[in-house]
């Protein structure tokens, strides 16, 4: 998930860079355009259009969501209960050894056998403590996980819905219209000036048109919000398992759901990466 988030994060952090690029490309194809920071009081795109605070809220959300998935996985996979049981068994064995040493140090009165009760009980009692301790710690861990998933669900939904809306209503249209403007600008410049251009100039310009068309094609084909759909589905499964009746089968399913939440995005990550590569060509 962290890789997918990193790619989505790039869309947000580059919003202002993209607007500047669109504006300067427009100036490139329009010799009559005088460039500036504002026109009639309105931002041209040369300087940041989207506020740093709004962009930071998005990048923070993605980072926190990644940390949330990782912390859930870390707690679900915590070996503390097992270590407690193992540690308790070792403690029992060592207590038995200690009791034996105490007996050896003492001198029982003549005719009386040494009391080996402590040594006899230390091991089994520690084993029982270990088993119960493991159960208690397991229970504490599971309760903490379920509580975190349930308490986090509304906030996670809010974040996913907002990121989804941003990608569908802001990022995607901003990219497609901006790339289409660059393509239309290069096409128009070529058509207007093609008769007076040399062969190498035409070749270079057509290469620009080709590049702009490829980037536009990639932007239209790519649906970055699909990544959010993947995370949302995985999160819904996580909440469902967290609230299912408790049984060993459900515990396995819960861990599996957390893993899915973190890992199911590989194909989407790949497509996003290809999209990003195409746009950067």
């Amino acid at each position, binding site marked *: 998930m962290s890789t997918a988030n990193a790619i989505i994060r790039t869309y947000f952090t580059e919003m202002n860079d993209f607007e500047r690029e669109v504006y300067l490309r427009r100036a490139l194809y329009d010799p009559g355009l005088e460039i500036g920071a504002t026109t009639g009081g309105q931002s041209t795109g040369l300087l940041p259009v989207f506020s740093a605070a*709004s962009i930071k*809220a998005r990048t923070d959300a993605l980072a926190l*969501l990644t940390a949330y998935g990782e912390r859930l996985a870390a707690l679900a996979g915590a070996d503390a209960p097992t270590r407690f049981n193992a540690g308790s068994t070792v*403690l029992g064995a060592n207590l038995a050894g200690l009791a034996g040493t105490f007996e050896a*140090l003492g001198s029982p009165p003549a005719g009386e056998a040494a009391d080996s009760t402590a040594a006899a009980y230390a091991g089994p009692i520690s084993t029982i403590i270990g088993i119960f301790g493991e159960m208690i710690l397991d229970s504490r861990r599971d309760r903490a996980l379920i509580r975190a998933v349930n308490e986090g669900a509304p906030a996670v939904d809010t974040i996913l819905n907002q990121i989804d*809306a941003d990608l569908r209503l802001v990022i995607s249209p901003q990219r497609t*219209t901006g790339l289409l*403007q660059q393509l239309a600008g290069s096409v128009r410049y070529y058509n207007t000036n093609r008769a007076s251009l040399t062969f190498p100039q035409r070749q270079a310009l057509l290469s620009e048109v080709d590049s702009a068309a490829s980037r536009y094609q990639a932007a239209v084909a790519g649906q970055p919000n699909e990544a959010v759909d993947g995370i949302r589905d995985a999160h819904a499964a996580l909440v469902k398992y967290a609230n299912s009746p408790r049984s060993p089968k459900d515990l396995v399913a819960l861990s599996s759901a957390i893993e899915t939440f973190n890992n199911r995005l590989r194909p989407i990550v790949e497509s996003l990466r290809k999209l990003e590569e195409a746009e950067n060509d």
Partner: protein
Amino acid sequence: MQDTITFSDNFVESDVTVDAAQLAEITRDCFLLSMETSLDDGVQGILYSLGIRLREQHRHLIKAVFDRGTDALTQANDEIKRINKKLKQVKADLDRVADVIGGLGALTKQLDELLKIAKIVFYLGRARDRYGGLVLGIFVLAAIYGFGLVTGGRDRLGGFESREMPCVIIEEYETCLDLFSSVRR
């Protein structure tokens, strides 16, 4: 805050109100039509200029939409931050309980070894009474030092020296009981 924008000028006969998605669609159509070769060059130019103008309007609209979602997102971020902190704390608590029980096992073993040293000292003390103090004193020190080297008794264990272990064991037992009872709660 508004999610729509109203156009009222020479391009249309009456006011037209559109939302961000519709405006993006119209902007795309303008740019695509500006590349339609069957259209007159002048019309293409108008469509291209109109596309640029509409895109600027669209940018203002999506900026407003973008900023409007920030407050809700910031609140959700704070909530996730709180939960992440709690998850980290629970894991640390569980690890600490397991660490303490492991440490207790090691400390108990260490105490056992120290008592064995005491036993050796006791027997050597009796030998001293019989054979004289100085020579046996040297043997005692050498034996303790050698035993420490073999068992690691001179090493620091859990941040404490061997001589502090009886006190440490009591403290660790108490810590373990406290943590364990808090975990049960």
